[in-house]
């Protein structure tokens, strides 16, 4: 692991460095895991404010796990335990102007099924799958981010992919 000469992260430029490194990943992680019912942006903000309040006791190396734990817990405490449904965006369809209407309908149906299947994944499967497919993160990067082993990342990832396929295709 990188060693730093900073014993804590109270100085503004050190804090900003930590912020730039982790804020977007933290935001996307929260969104994939909990969806949008509580604003993930607010939770990112809260977590970083708490981190700054505690900056004197936190080294740059410890900041990541502090942030992910704090934000995750405050989500868990606030959230109603409902199924998380991530809405798919319709935008790309608008650009296909001369598309066959049957095709458009089929595509829409497919995305509906995809959305439901994604909601039926476990939180653990969904966050790993979307960090990999949308944020293009390597398996090792995800493992480092979530503080789990690469093996468990891959187990969740493969589980997610096979489960999505089964649900979308109505396979047993």
């Amino acid at each position, binding site marked *: 692991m990188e060693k730093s000469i900073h014993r804590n992260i109270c100085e503004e430029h050190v804090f900003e460095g930590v912020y730039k490194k982790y804020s977007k990943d933290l935001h996307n992680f929260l969104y994939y895991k909990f969806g949008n019912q509580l604003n993930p942006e607010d939770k990112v903000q809260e977590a970083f404010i708490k981190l*700054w309040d505690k900056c004197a006791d936190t080294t740059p190396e410890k900041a990541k796990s502090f942030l992910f734990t704090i934000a995750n817990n405050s989500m868990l405490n606030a959230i109603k335990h409902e199924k998380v449904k991530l809405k798919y965006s319709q935008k790309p369809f608008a650009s296909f102007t001369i598309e066959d209407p049957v095709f458009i309908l089929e595509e829409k149906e497919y995305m509906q099924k995809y959305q439901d299947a994604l909601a039926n994944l476990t939180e653990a499967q969904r966050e790993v799958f979307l960090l990999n497919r949308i944020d293009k993160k390597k398996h090792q990067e995800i493992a480092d981010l979530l503080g789990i082993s690469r093996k468990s990342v891959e187990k969740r990832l493969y589980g997610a992919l096979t489960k999505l396929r089964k649900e979308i295709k109505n396979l047993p």
Partner: protein
Amino acid sequence: MNKEKLILKWLDDDISDEEMKEIKQLPEFEDYLKISNKAHHFKPPEFNTYKVLNKIKSKHYRSRKLYWQYSIAASIILIFSALLIYNSDSHESINTSIAEQKEITLPDNSKVSLNAGSIITYDAENWNTNRTIQLEGEAFFKVAKGKKFDVITNNATVSVLGTEFVVNNRSAFLEVMTFEGLVQVVTKDTILNLTKGNSIVINKDYFSNYAFEREQPTWLEGSSSFKSTQLEIVLNELERQYDITLNIPKNLQLHRLYTGNFPHNNLEEALQSISVPMNLKYSLKGEKTVSLAYIEEK
């Protein structure tokens, strides 16, 4: 190869052409490909890094203000304690932000020029007996004659007697250039002596040295220059000199070596001096963001 292993390699973007042929034979692969291609429809809402950072800063400093009465009380106590107890911890810390340079004179008249995005820490009180500086980033030193002078970085300790030299230390990257006298570089596995006009570069497991003829580093004259330096290091320096964010595509080979320089006062020119020789194109997105891409072959 085992099916699961093959699919995981594909998901990690770490698959050979041979394996790709094999994976295409799998009956379920078409479904997986479609699932993967459609995943982008679930993209999270755009996260505005700057907006949120500003909110955090304003909240942080507001909450600080509330405690000003306590702070004053605390400071008075502190001043008294400081008078009572001899305080040997007198560490000075000086840093530069993006696109900023500073010149610092140390208690013995040694001079330090700090390049952008760097920080030094030293003990001002006991400077004459303990000439030790901790450095993160890049600095040019003109050392006054005297006892041993050490620059400590996370990659190595650089020691001298009286000389002029540059230390550039960015995470796993270290560059030391000697402009005058003799410098000793001590890493965890080697000891090297560098004479005038010589330099070394250590980057993870990659190691090289070269000779040069300049009198002082080019960044003191408003440009950054590189000799066979990994593109990643060059792009990081560009971000530090211009306060911009670079969007770097995944397929960009950041370990390719770059030789050349870029000015600090003209972003377009700087971008051209890097992108043209590296066969890249760039596009400005607003004031603070630049996207890089390979020029596609026809």
